[in-house]
């Protein structure tokens, strides 16, 4: 009987992994074929776009299929579905931005790596098992090393690649160490089962081990999202690597990191013993506050555009950490007016659009035949023939600084509102302080974003601008700007899925008898 239960669970899991499988298989096919056929990068890019579309079709095919939450390694809940849709959509935008980046002979590996990263991110979104989650995370990291190394072999890119590689290995080590402790403290690898166990009145077998697990897992994931104290790489790597890589690095690992945090930390430990939840909340609080402050304060000093966006990406990781803190503090109160997970998901959507749009503008623009590097070089862009680009940049920057009614504003609103609604369940005012810190930081952030807008429109131009990249880049940037405005006006379109995702993240049904037996057998194993 148990055999058939496991068989069903495995087949079901494979079925819901169809979108990821499509991506992985096409990436493998591309990489294998590339030495034997000679195709242009445009064509490889087109193949990648088709495989993303095929993956989306598979996603819709798998829609509604489900497996037993306590037995399968991957699940297909609302959080997974909406996140995967987001990742696929952003994958299209990235392909649009990247279509001219690699040389013809390396294009297959480059686009294949991008597809693999997307597949890894989607695996993390649907992961329900620590091992599986780790595989997903590494499936994002390893192609990233490849992409960093592949594109251009100049000393600066090599330095960037090396830095990223070693620090990423360190972070993976920390994460793996934490996951090991997680397994050690529960005896389980299934995340829903862990959450179910920790929400029971009986304590976890070893609470103190769980604390170590939380700290190390969080530390490992902090690297992915570029949060303090593992943020150091971000400015150096962004500045040193090609712009398109910086764009991918600022978006995909961050999304993956926060999805992993939702899956492995907030969903599991928000319902654990009060002491453990409290410690986890304090940890997230400290990271959130430190990240926001550091990111914004140092960003004030930056003149280099990519470095500025790197610090801005750190600052946004801080805002997102406020959502994590709120999610931990809210616990099982999914019915709260605004849930932390809801805020995180909403913010990720907004962040994808505005940050990819801003990087896209840098990719598009050339001044006097050279790429734009410093903030000053954007002076006067608003009144040249490249004014649509300036407009898109202005929309993205205003959204990044959180000006209503753009999408970035609603993202901040949802995150800070979730912190405030956590106050209803938590007596301490620490979350109120965090929300206030967040708002103050947005005010500081507005300074360096608005400075660019001011320069673009009120300063005389310093050179001859030209636009390159053709329609794919232009339409990606345009889509980012237009969606930032439109979704800002109709934010319910994003808020409803975010709400569903939040409910799914904390959803814990009563396990079936067979699943309980499985869990019990597993937890009593030595």
């Amino acid at each position, binding site marked *: 009987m148990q055999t058939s239960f496991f068989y069903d669970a495995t087949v079901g899991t494979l079925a819901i992994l169809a979108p990821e499988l499509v991506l992985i298989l096409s990436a493998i096919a591309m990489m294998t074929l590339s030495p034997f056929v000679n195709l242009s990068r445009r064509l490889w890019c087109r193949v990648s776009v088709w495989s993303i579309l095929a993956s989306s079709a598979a996603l819709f095919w798998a829609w509604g299929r489900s497996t037993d939450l306590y037995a399968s390694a991957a699940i297909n809940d609302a959080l997974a579905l909406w996140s995967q849709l987001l990742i696929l959509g952003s994958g299209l935008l990235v392909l649009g931005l990247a279509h001219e980046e690699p040389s013809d002979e390396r294009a297959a590996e480059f686009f294949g790596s991008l597809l693999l990263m997307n597949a890894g991110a989607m695996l993390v979104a649907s992961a329900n098992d620590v091992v599986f989650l780790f595989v997903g995370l590494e499936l994002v990291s390893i192609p990233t090393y490849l992409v960093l190394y592949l594109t251009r072999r100049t000393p600066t890119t090599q330095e960037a690649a*090396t830095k990223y590689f070693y620090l990423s290995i360190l972070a993976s080590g920390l994460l793996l160490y934490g996951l090991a402790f997680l397994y050690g403290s529960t005896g389980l690898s299934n995340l829903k089962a862990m959450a179910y166990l920790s929400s029971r009145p009986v304590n976890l077998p070893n609470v103190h081990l769980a604390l170590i697990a939380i700290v190390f897992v969080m530390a490992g994931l902090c690297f992915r999202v570029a949060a303090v*104290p593992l943020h*150091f790489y971000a400015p150096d790597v962004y500045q040193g690597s090609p712009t398109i890589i910086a764009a991918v690095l600022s978006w995909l690992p961050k999304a993956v990191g926060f999805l992993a945090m939702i899956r492995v930390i907030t969903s599991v430990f928000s319902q654990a013993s009060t002491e453990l939840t409290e410690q986890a909340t304090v940890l997230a609080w400290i990271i959130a506050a430190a990240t926001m402050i550091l990111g914004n*304060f*140092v960003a004030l000093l930056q003149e280099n555009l990519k470095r500025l966006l790197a610090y801005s990406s750190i600052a946004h990781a801080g805002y997102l950490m406020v959502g994590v803190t709120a999610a931990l503090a809210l616990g099982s109160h999914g019915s709260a007016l605004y849930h932390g997970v809801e805020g995180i998901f909403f913010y990720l959507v907004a962040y994808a659009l505005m940050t990819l749009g801003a990087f896209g503008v840098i990719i598009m623009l050339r001044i006097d035949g050279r790429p734009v590097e410093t903030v000053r070089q954007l002076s006067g862009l608003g009144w040249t023939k490249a004014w649509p680009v300036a407009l898109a940049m202005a929309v993205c920057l205003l959204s990044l600084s959180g000006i209503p009614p753009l999408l970035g504003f609603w993202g901040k609103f949802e995150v800070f509102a979730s912190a405030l609604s956590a106050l209803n369940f938590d007596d301490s005012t620490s979350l109120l302080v965090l929300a206030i810190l967040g708002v103050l930081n947005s005010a500081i952030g507005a300074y360096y974003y608005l400075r660019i807008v001011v320069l673009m429109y009120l300063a005389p131009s310093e050179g001859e601008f030209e636009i390159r990249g053709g329609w794919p880049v232009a339409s990606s940037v345009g889509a980012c700007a237009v969606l930032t405005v439109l979704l800002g006006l109709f934010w319910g379109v994003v808020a409803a899925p975010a709400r569903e995702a939040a409910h799914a993240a904390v959803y814990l049904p009563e396990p079936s008898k067979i699943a309980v037996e499985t869990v019990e057998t597993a937890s009593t194993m030595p």
Partner: protein
Amino acid sequence: MESAYEPGFFVRNAWLIPFFPLLGALVTAVGARRLRGLAHLPVWAGIGLAFLVSLGTLASADHAAKYTVFEWLSAGNLEVPFQVRVDGLSTMMLSMVTFVSGLVAIFAAGYMHGDPSYPRFFALIGLFVASMTGLVLSNNYLLTYVFWEGVGACSYLLIGFWYARPSAAAAAMKAFLVNRVGDFGFAIAIFWLWSIAPGHDLSYDSIFAAAESGSIPTSAIAGISLLLFWGATAKSAQIPLYTWLPDAMEGPTPVSALIHAATMVTAGVYLLARSMPMVAMAPGVQAVIAATGCATALLAAAIALTQNDLKRVMAYSTVSQLGYMFMALGSGVGDVAQLAVVAAMFHLFTHAFFKALLFLASGSVMHAMGDVIDMRRFRGLRHRLPITYLTFAVGALALAAFPPLSGFFSKDEVLGAISGAIHASESYSWVYQIVYWTALVTAFMTAFYTGRAFFLTFHGPEKLPSPNDPEAPPVDAHAHGHADDAHGHHHEIGHESPPVMAIPLMILAGCTVLIGLICLVAWPITGGPAEWFAGHLEKTLGFEALGHGEHGFSWFTATLGTLLGVGGIALAYVMYAEPGPLPARMKERFGALYRASLGKFYVDEFYDATVVAIVRISASISDFVDTYVVDRLITGIALIPRAIGRARLALYQNGLIQFYAASSALCVAFLLLFLVLLGLQRP
């Protein structure tokens, strides 16, 4: 009872009344460049259609008639639907407002002809009519407040229509600021109502029902009524906030006629009449209202006695007549409550016609005199301006309450209401006693200053304004140049106005006579001169519950009032019909009083020295604090993040991978230690 009511066609479509003028205004505003000299047409059409719909609503007026057009505001427990109320009071106001506005808009097409901002003028008039009708139609205090602010904004824009003239800009600013003071009271009243109304429902029916059932404490009713009256004193130009209205005459004359005589200034009266079911429950407040109205009527009449500017005489007369309306409203105590509100609204109704008439006639004089309005610079115009002369005469007689014109009957109703209050009021009888006799004295003064303005303008030897006139302001040729430069009057002076201006005058004069005749004819049939009006007004929300007192026509009051009116006109005739030594001798005899009246009793100077001075001082203190404390503080604080970033945080970004790894690891270790200690600290 209310639920059984089925809204009829005109009730369901009453929202069209504000909508049509608004549409007209928008069309004019958008098509300004194309329409140019035809810019009045969309607004005429809008107001005309609104008037037709208003006439339709007259028949379907019912005290329960309301209709929710759409859900407007919904925030937390504040729900404000866009709901219209089509009862006796609102339909009467709507018909009057749209009718007078229509005539004024027609007149203005002639008066404003050639002005470079011709389309702007009509767009604003359309916007004003939309706001005013919206104010009257809305069924809750908040929506009323929105439109209340709307008419205030239109008034500001229209007073300052010739904004290039410093005096017009200053007058607009003054009107706006003084009205803000009043709006403040109204706003507080709404906040208070919101906090105590059942279900936070601000609609009139629920609030009056709550007031009647006693679920709103008496002290709150008194306080809210007083605050509403505070709001009304600004909009309807009562003491202490009346000073803006005479200055508002800087606007184009049609604006003065429409907004600052016939319609907008009655908004305060309307608000109190609308709230009568609640205000009538606070007799103390009623006495305050009556006394304020009385004092205003007397003061304004006393100032009007000596003014030389024809429009200013009319402006002070408006203030004074509004005072009468408030006297009547304030007399709504006990079983004469309904009588009082009917009297106030009837006077408002008749006043709208004859005062609009008088203003338009003054405008016609001004138009003919090349924008000169100083009565010392022209005389004896009766032969040159025959139509203006005759229509002005009708208006002046109505204002002086000469029977059987409309003004006679309405003033008599007001006096009757006050004398009723003397008997009905329990503890404030003496107040009404004083009010009654003061009102009679004021009636005499009204007749006198009206007669004075009339005789000075139209009688005596003919004289036209000329630059050589010793009364003409010496350097005024350029300052007043707007008349020729901007306003564009290039015609010869001293001719009767064109038909487009004369016909509205005749219609308004006809109405003034007609309303009087209706009263006269209806008297034997219905048992009272204004019963036909009262019958319609009775179909107003909450009015059927007000006290119905016995209302007989008081021959004593009527006779006394008429005698005083005739006496005033006669005195004016003796003094001013032909130039004589009498006025000069009077001036000498009552020198101090004359100067005080001419100087408007120095109320403006008093306000300047006290209120304005205090505000100015506090403004300069705030300015100082803002510039030197707040700004410096902000600039200082803004430096901190930058400094911290530069001095500390940026140092750790040194590019050494070993350092990054080591410090990350240390930080993680520190965090773990901290959390473990935190866990240990708790039991």
